[in-house]
């Protein structure tokens, strides 16, 4: 459709329409998200196995998790998901300035999450609640206890890495939005970057109860 291609310079020539291009991009993103889900599934499986083998050790160790910080971080990530969803909405309406502002707020929430997580890590380091053979906390010992902290650092660490990557992606999207790359007819990068951020939220929704509340 040469007329449409002329009207929308973002359309790659091998797609019949902008809609088809958007569908392909979205499906590609979801396939990537599926691999991310499976990556974390392996770690959740490790958690399930060791929790099953050492229920008492895990229950005792989780009493040393900072529930208040964890709950605050849950609220922070949920709210950042809201701001991203709104950013996508305004990008589709062609209101780039609101999109940029909301993305900036989201990135700030991501930074707040990392700062709170840093306080938590600091406390665990000071107490000696460390993974594997580096565990030297006097207050609690027994089978499975250090495995709890190994999995805690591994899973929240990998999740934290995803927060950092998500902040980078959203920064790039915000810069493009500020440059005026997006319009009513084309805002796919905002949507796909937002999908990544929601996945980060989705994983935290499960990490929070598993490590803090059980």
């Amino acid at each position, binding site marked *: 459709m040469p007329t449409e291609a002329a009207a929308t310079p973002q359309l790659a020539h091998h797609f019949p*329409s902008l809609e088809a291009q958007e*569908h392909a991009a979205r499906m590609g993103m979801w396939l990537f998200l599926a691999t991310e889900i499976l990556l974390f599934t392996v770690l959740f499986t490790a958690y399930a196995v060791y929790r099953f083998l050492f229920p*008492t050790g895990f229950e005792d160790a989780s009493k040393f998790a900072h529930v208040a910080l964890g709950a605050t971080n849950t609220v922070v990530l949920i709210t950042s998901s809201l701001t991203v969803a709104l950013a996508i909405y305004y990008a589709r309406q062609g209101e780039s300035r609101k999109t940029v502002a909301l993305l900036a707020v989201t990135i700030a929430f991501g930074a707040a999450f990392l700062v709170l997580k840093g306080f938590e890590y600091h406390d665990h380091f000071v107490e000696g609640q460390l993974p594997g053979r580096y565990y030297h906390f006097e207050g609690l010992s027994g089978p499975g206890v250090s495995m709890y902290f190994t999995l805690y650092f591994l899973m929240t660490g990998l999740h934290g890495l995803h927060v950092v990557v998500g902040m980078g992606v959203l920064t790039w999207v915000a810069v493009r939005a500020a440059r005026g790359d997006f319009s009513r007819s084309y805002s796919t990068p905002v949507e796909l970057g937002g999908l990544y951020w929601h996945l980060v939220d989705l994983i935290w929704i499960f990490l929070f109860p598993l490590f803090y509340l059980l």
Partner: protein
Amino acid sequence: MAATSHAHKEFGPAQYLAVWVGLLVLTALTVAVWKMHFSLGTRVTLALTIATFKAGLVALFFMHLWEHGGVTRLVMATSLLFLVLLIGLVLADNATRFQYANPPYSEPWLQVPYQQMAPPMQDQPPPLEAAPPQRRP
């Protein structure tokens, strides 16, 4: 064209705010359940149920699965299927193992919980019930 064809079923700020409030309520609920000190089984069930509801809200509304559907739902469903398969089968493996094939002091096979054991830790895992010797035909 693309903008108008799905504009009519798109969600707006009001719906997103409602989803956000729902997520906050469920977060408060999961912390409240934790404070009530139920038995471990109840807590695990409740916490994972609430987390699944929250994940459903995020996936359906924030991640647009409700609006878009189609092949993206299939991708999500497939990854969830493999999640269930992996966790389910690996747990089933550990649960049905011969005792000594699991790490020492792993609890499902101990007669007494680890913490109630006599202070000097037993070096030997608790004995299996003696099985009658099998006679070969």
